[in-house]
């Protein structure tokens, strides 16, 4: 089947023709995945649910040329003799870990061979890492507690001398049962939990959550609220990029970069606090709009702060570019070529640095980005230098967007009242966070209870790619390569 035939059997979500739902049986589950892959589409998320959410099922969200599609395969009518659903790992390699997570959380098994636990860490069972055999090969286990101020996870390096032959990550250490926790919240409060799936992407997750909620409850939010959400999302991108650019300089042995960029980041955080009320806007995006109006003089101060950030980061970029030691560490390190990136489904910022020209703000044109028209930033070399360059470009572009928003903010309300309807609902929200595409699938029950919520962080796509990026690099470059991706553990471990 071509995409057209699938389109004909799909139904739109909440009257939105660009987001469509396809209920499929097991053979079609596989064929849909094949057809989307063949047409150049990509898998955005894969999740499951058990009987606590109504009926057991697996879901796959795809980004296709015809919009966002969600395939649903019910598992309360087992078809396959071994009671497993068709795996998608050969088509989308990162699906393997998502399928293992679905098995951990909901007991639904895929037909793919790797069935080691992923998010759950059974006490009685040692994790079986893939062993590399040969003369002089030894293993370096690192973590879960790391040397820096970062999240916990385990890395197993197989090395010869200082060259990395293979890296295998073992994650799940921050698994705290977020998906199940959502059921303890009303749908209006669930937004606060969504914002804390990955603290560095609070705006992206809370916005995606609100899109999913507002679509199924058929609430249209004011234009001003859309712009104020974008304001926060771009500030989040600016703060994270500034932090990473400093940390990357530091990991390349250039502490000056950390001092300078962390100073700029602090300025942005303080301007954000004066404008949005929080250094990290955890509770800015709320169902129906945003938390409050902008205080009077804050916009001018924020605009001035960002003008300085643009000017100063321009100077710092010149310094990074001309510093022989920094260039030597960045260029060619941790490279993922565009062909491999496409094969792995490398997403977001790291994907764009490897020639994958995807950005949901541009691809889906969700409001207000259809008006703001952000420029896509990208590179082809796929190395640390490329991920640094894309951050510099996006930093400039996001500063431009925020200043544009401040200058042209539409008048009107920044929030509307929102009430739960008297029927069940299901919605999807997708937002391009600073790291990449964030997706939230939300099912609510009449009266506003949450039946099921799945938040998807792009780190799922990119953790396996990190393992490819370090092959043939030296162990001491791993912190630099890892930081250049800066993936979320919490967003992944749920």
């Amino acid at each position, binding site marked *: 089947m071509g995409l057209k035939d699938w389109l004909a059997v799909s139904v739109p979500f909440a009257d939105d023709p660009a987001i469509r739902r396809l209920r499929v049986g097991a053979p079609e589950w596989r064929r849909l995945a094949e057809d989307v892959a063949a047409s150049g589409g990509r898998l955005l998320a894969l999740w499951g649910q058990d009987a606590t959410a109504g009926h057991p099922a697996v879901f796959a969200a795809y980004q296709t040329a015809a919009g966002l599609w969600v395939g649903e395969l019910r598992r309360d009518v087992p078809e396959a003799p071994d009671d497993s659903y068709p795996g998608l790992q050969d088509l989308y390699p990162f699906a393997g870990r998502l399928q293992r997570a679905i098995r951990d959380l909901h007991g639904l098994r895929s037909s793919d061979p790797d069935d080691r636990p992923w998010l759950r860490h059974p006490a009685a069972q040692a994790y079986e890492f893939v062993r590399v055999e040969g003369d002089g090969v030894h293993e370096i286990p690192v973590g879960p507690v790391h*040397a820096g101020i970062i999240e*916990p996870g385990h890395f197993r390096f197989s090395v010869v001398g200082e060259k990395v032959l293979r890296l295998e990550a073992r994650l799940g250490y*921050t698994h705290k049962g977020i998906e199940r*926790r959502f059921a303890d919240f009303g749908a209006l409060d669930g937004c606060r939990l969504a914002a804390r799936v990955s*603290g560095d992407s609070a705006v992206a997750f809370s916005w995606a959550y609100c899109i999913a909620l507002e679509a199924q409850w058929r609430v249209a939010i004011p234009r001003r609220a859309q712009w104020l959400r974008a304001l926060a999302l771009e500030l989040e991108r600016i703060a994270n990029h500034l932090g990473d650019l400093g940390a990357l300089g530091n990991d390349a042995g250039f502490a*000056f970069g950390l001092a300078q960029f962390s100073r700029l980041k602090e300025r942005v955080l303080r301007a954000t606090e004066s404008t949005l009320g929080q250094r990290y806007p955890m509770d800015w995006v709320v169902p129906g709009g945003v938390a409050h109006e902008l205080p009077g003089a804050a916009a001018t101060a924020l605009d001035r702060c960002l003008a300085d950030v643009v000017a100063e980061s321009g100077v710092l970029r010149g310094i990074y570019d001309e510093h022989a030691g920094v260039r030597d560490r960045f260029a060619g390190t941790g490279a993922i070529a565009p062909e491999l990136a496409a094969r792995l489904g490398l997403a977001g910022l790291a994907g764009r640095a490897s020639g994958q020209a995807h950005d949901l703000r541009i691809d889906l044109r969700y409001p207000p980005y259809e008006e703001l028209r952000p420029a896509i930033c990208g590179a082809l070399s796929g190395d640390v230098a490329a991920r640094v360059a894309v951050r510099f470009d996006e930093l400039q572009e996001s500063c431009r967007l925020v200043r544009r928003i401040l200058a042209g903010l539409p008048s009107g309300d920044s929030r509307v009242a929102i009430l739960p309807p008297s029927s069940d609902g299901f919605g999807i929200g997708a937002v391009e966070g600073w790291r990449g595409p964030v997706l939230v699938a939300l099912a609510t029950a009449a009266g506003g209870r949450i039946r099921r919520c799945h938040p998807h962080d792009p780190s799922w796509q990119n953790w396996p790619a990190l393992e490819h990026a370090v092959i043939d690099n030296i162990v001491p470059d791993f912190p630099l390569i890892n930081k250049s991706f800066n993936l979320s553990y*919490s967003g992944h471990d749920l």
Partner: protein
Amino acid sequence: MLKTLRQIRRTGIVSEPVPAPDDALRIRAALEGRILGILGRALAVRMVDAGSCNGCELEVNALTNPIYNIEGLGVHFVASPRHADLLLVSGPVTVAMREPLLRVYEATPDPKLVVAVGDCGCDGGIFGCGGPSLGAVANVIPVDVAVPGCPPNPNRLLAGILAALDPSAALDVGQESRGRAE
């Protein structure tokens, strides 16, 4: 090189004054004045994320920027618990991090201090306590000071660390742990 030096000169010194130790954050008067006398104001801190959303880590990282300049106070972050005087622990503690956290605590030489960070480190916060979340840091290891906030800002973190460290504060504060912050 010239550009770098010019930028350093133009930036100047941006560090701000230190906040006072906040004794309201103290939940356990665990240390004798003798121990604090040994530590003085040269403190080695080990950060352990025991399951947080990474928001607290962002603010702990900010402590090292030139504005809060925590190293200028004699407080520095170390790479191993074996080098640490104080553990800064964010939560909620997950089931998978319980054992690693206990091992970090055991590896930290006595006398040692523990500062729990963030609402989740104080009482489980929004993730609560149940299933794979064990909630407060104090549910797994003894805690001296708990700093609430989601996330707590760097000045609050600094005040919490100083409250754990300040000998004069230790004389004033009374009894054993109540388990968590108010």
